[in-house]
């Protein structure tokens, strides 16, 4: 029963951890703007939390570079399954305008698997909220998949 409650609340009230992975701040302030009165994602139960161990959703903005790819991998590993990864902005998708720079590895998906891509330079708060809502449907699928895997094994 407790398991059911956790599964339901994970969809109804996802906890988010945000990591700036070498972006220009544009997407970061738009991600923060989602939490403020005009967009107010708390009405969907979304809560921004600092600790990756408590979080269900990881929002990553910006390109991955050679120094922070370990940090990003570390945050990803600390999150418990099932987890949802959302890459935000053109840089997070492919490297964007910085793609040719020497210290840039590329998009977030070069280091960790990404579930939802939110385009834009910078992505608008509406687009980010849309990405999170779309991702939650995927999180439900992941939960189902985990269940069938558990039965099969």
């Amino acid at each position, binding site marked *: 029963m407790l398991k059911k409650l956790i599964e339901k609340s994970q969809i109804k009230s996802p906890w988010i951890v945000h990591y700036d992975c070498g972006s220009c701040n*544009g997407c970061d302030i738009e991600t923060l*703007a989602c939490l403020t*009165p*005009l967009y107010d994602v708390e009405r969907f139960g979304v809560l921004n*939390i600092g600790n990756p161990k408590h979080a269900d959703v990881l929002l990553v903005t910006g390109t991955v570079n050679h120094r*922070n790819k370990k940090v990003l991998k570390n945050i990803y590993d600390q999150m418990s399954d099932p987890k949802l990864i959302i890459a935000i902005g053109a840089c997070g998708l492919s490297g964007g305008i910085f793609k*040719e*720079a020497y210290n840039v590895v590329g998009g977030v998906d070069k280091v960790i698997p990404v579930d939802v891509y939110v385009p834009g330079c*910078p992505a608008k708060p509406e687009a980010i909220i849309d990405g999170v809502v779309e991702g939650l449907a995927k999180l439900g699928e992941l939960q189902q998949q985990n269940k069938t895997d558990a039965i099969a094994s």
Partner: protein
Amino acid sequence: MSKTIIPFGPQHPVLPEPIHVSLTVEDEIVTEAVPAFGYVHRGLEKLAEKKDFNQMIQVVERVCGICSMIHAMCYCEGLETLMNVEVPRRAKLLRVIWSELHRIHSHLLWLGLYADAFGFESVFMQFWKIRERIMDINEATAGNRVIVSVNQVGGVRRDLSPSQLKWILDEITVVEKEMKSMESTMLNDYTVKKRTVGIGVLTREMAYELGASGPVLRASGIAQDMRQLKYEAFDELDFEPVVEQDGDCYARGVIRFRETMQSIDIVRQAISRLPQGDTFVKVKGKPEGEIVTRVEQPRGECLYYIKANKTKFLDRLRIRTPTFANIPPLAAMLPGIELADVPVVILSIDPCISCTER
């Protein structure tokens, strides 16, 4: 108690950006702070070899999303001087309008984050609510909320129609009214004062010696503002640098609050003096020579060094940003304070890590 080393960052709840500080702590008191960098380094200056000088405008805008307009303005100003271009007066005033709008939204953003750092979440929400009006102006006039991309070598890409100007005036009047309603909370509240007065003091001499810039310097009693250089249209605008004497976190908050009001006033002045005319001139040829341009960002002095050799690509582009100048003062402020005050002091310099590391 013996020494403990506590890592702060790169991923930390109060930090919107990754910076790492190793804090050496005895009991609850910080004795040493060593910052470490490189988490946001992309190598933008080197991109000048791969993208031509016009494309670089879009790249320098993305040095920092919060003050993107001011970066591009500084870069274009340098190139215009190298290419002997006389920018129309209207374009100069339009640049001032957009850059001051950027300063307002940056300071409002900081005031919110700062309140959040000492746990005053309702103030955070209020300031960000006020800020959305400025973002609406950006979106309506330039087509994008954060990176407005209005600059080009020789002027600005977009013009403001009379109805838009009237609407901007109406909106900033509302912003001013809402800011005034926040004044007593931000400046006189017991909780705010308890967490900020006397914390992270930077004396006048230290600020000068360590090379602080922007609000950090002005909060320590030195009236230095790059807008005094009268770049763009600041020669005809009436303005005095905002100065506070105490040099603590509270003074830095007051500076930013007052500067927001001042920027609203500058936008009003610029709109009232806006002449008719072109918004850009056609530019021919390639830049040659070297130049240093300096402008005032929301966080302090921003310096661009451009070296060009009459080809499409620049020889060298060097960017020095205000947060880089404010890191040594930060390292001097941290020893001697309590661990719980560290987030407040770090945020009080308004760190912009993506500027610093580029």
